[in-house]
């Protein structure tokens, strides 16, 4: 993770992807779609109730070359932050 909790809490994402309720691989596919809608350097935020999404998105970010910024816990779901790098 490359952002502190404070940085994540004050970060404004260019796109919020609400994948709450979706089972694997739904959040990943929604993240992929969402990433295609923002410019390089922008941040997307994925909301997911699936507890493995945060590690899955982290692995996916490394694989495809995006920057995994970190995770915030919200009320019953995770907020996962990724910066588009290419």
């Amino acid at each position, binding site marked *: 993770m490359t952002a502190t909790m404070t940085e994540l809490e004050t970060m404004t994402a260019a796109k919020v992807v609400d994948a709450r309720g979706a*089972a*694997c*691989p739904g959040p*990943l596919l929604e*993240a992929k779609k969402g990433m295609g809608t923002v410019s390089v350097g922008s941040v997307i935020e994925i909301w997911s109730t699936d507890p493995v999404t945060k590690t899955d998105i982290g692995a*996916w970010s490394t*694989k*495809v070359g995006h920057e995994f910024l970190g995770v915030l816990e919200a009320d019953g779901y995770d907020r996962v932050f990724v910066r588009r790098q290419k």
Partner: protein
Amino acid sequence: MSDPEKLVFMVLHGPGHPEHATIPFVMACAALASDVQVVMGFQADGVELVRTGIAETIEAPGFPPLKKLLDDYRELGGTLLVCGPCLNSRGLKAPGDLVAGAEVVAAGRFVAEITSATNSLVY
């Protein structure tokens, strides 16, 4: 520039095994989302999964419905290859009995896809 990564998923289980039928689609969609080329090959009872109307009937607990995964897979650009002899032995005809995008092939095509892949997995 190196060749792109490619995975082949050989699917041999049909509607009688919803989890075995669903997981290769999950993996294939994740691979496509990760910029990996994907070929799905259907043999034996696996050919039933690409029969028109069958995906709509399959939903393994904990996973998205198979129809959603099939739609996502095709939208992401995945390839569907179906064993011709396996269709013949079941009295199925292409293209009428198969979902859109399914291509009927024989052993030589499967061998070519598998030998040119980064890795192959059998379900």
